[in-house]
């Protein structure tokens, strides 16, 4: 009897742990954040899309953090970002999804602030920050109701080559995993500025689990995306890439396509001081 109860708890714990595996990776936003922010008074309208071409057939595996499986999933988000000051931007997200065989449905929302410290070339590495609050439709798309995420942003340019790293630290505030510690993931990119209309890049996304209890290597998610990016007529910017999962815990093939458009809509705050470091 005791063995049965123990096995049942073990299975429940295992299922919960499996659902948390994908948490450090945000499939609604395969995007590397650079040091520079949206200019003051400028609004940026963006849609990020990722289609899982070859994924997993069970929920809680690959990019799926909820009960729906990742195979055939289309992650679709809409984002509005506004440059509050010359160094800080604010953004609102609407996350939608089309699961395999289903229709377009709401999956969650996010709000975030992002900023850059000092001016470019002041420090040996340009440093920025990112703070996000996210909530999900549970249990279909995530088992965590609310999450808080912080990323330092690090960028170094070598001529036309930019190297960017966004280590991610995520804490579940409500829902499964709220009593656990901080999870670690990463976003990174190498982007070469070849031509305004078409440039190559390589992007990396992944998650390792809890900081103090990393998942086994094979169950972690790691992706590499060769990308092309640039500007289309009328100032529309794009980023297209094909992502390959590097572990069995990852989805095997993901196609991403992001579009964004910037327009000046009016500044509500005055210009940041030239010698300022935060605002």
């Amino acid at each position, binding site marked *: 009897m005791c063995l049965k109860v123990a096995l049942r708890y073990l299975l429940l714990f295992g299922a919960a742990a499996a659902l948390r595996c994908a948490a450090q990776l945000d499939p609604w936003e395969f995007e590397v954040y650079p040091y520079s922010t949206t*200019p003051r008074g*400028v609004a940026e309208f963006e849609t990020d899309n990722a289609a899982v071409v070859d994924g997993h057939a069970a929920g809680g595996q690959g990019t799926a953090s909820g009960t729906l499986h990742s195979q055939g999933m289309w992650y679709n988000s809409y984002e509005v970002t506004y440059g509050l000051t*010359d160094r800080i931007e604010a953004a609102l997200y609407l996350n939608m999804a089309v699961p395999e065989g289903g229709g377009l449905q709401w999956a969650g929302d996010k709000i975030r602030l992002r900023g850059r410290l000092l*001016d470019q070339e002041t420090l040996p590495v340009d440093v920025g920050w990112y703070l996000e609050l996210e909530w999900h439709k549970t249990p279909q798309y995530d088992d965590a109701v609310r999450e808080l995420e912080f990323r330092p942003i690090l960028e170094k340019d070598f001529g*036309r080559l930019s190297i960017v790293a966004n280590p991610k630290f995520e804490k579940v505030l409500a829902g499964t995993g709220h009593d656990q510690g901080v999870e670690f993931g990463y976003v990174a990119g190498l982007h070469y500025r070849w031509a305004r209309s078409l440039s190559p890049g390589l992007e990396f996304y992944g998650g390792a689990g809890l900081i103090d209890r990393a998942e086994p290597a094979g169950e972690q998610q790691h992706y590499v995306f060769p990308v092309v990016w640039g500007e289309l007529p009328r100032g529309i910017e794009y980023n297209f890439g094909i992502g390959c999962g590097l572990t069995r815990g990852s989805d095997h093939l993901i196609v991403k396509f992001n579009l964004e458009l910037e327009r*000046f809509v009016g500044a509500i705050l005055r*210009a940041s001081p030239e010698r300022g470091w935060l605002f």
Partner: protein
Amino acid sequence: MTNTGINEKIFEIRFENHQFSPQTLMVPANTPLKVVVVNSSRERIEFESFSLNREKVVEPGESVTVKLPALRAGSYDFFDDFHQDVPEGAIVAK
């Protein structure tokens, strides 16, 4: 051109009459630079350089300073991202 005395040279690009002046800015290669972008027009501009990875909004009558690392010899674009009809300029490092 101004020399700040710490091996950093300062140059100026002015925006007026819907164009940048000079259109081609000659700078020394392999020397850290500051470019002061002065907006003498009544239009708001976004000074941007794709090859140098820089973008800054400049309000009418105001100026901003753009720090640049030591550049290799070559030509680097700049343009006004708010007005696509403004002729593109170049910073040429020699």
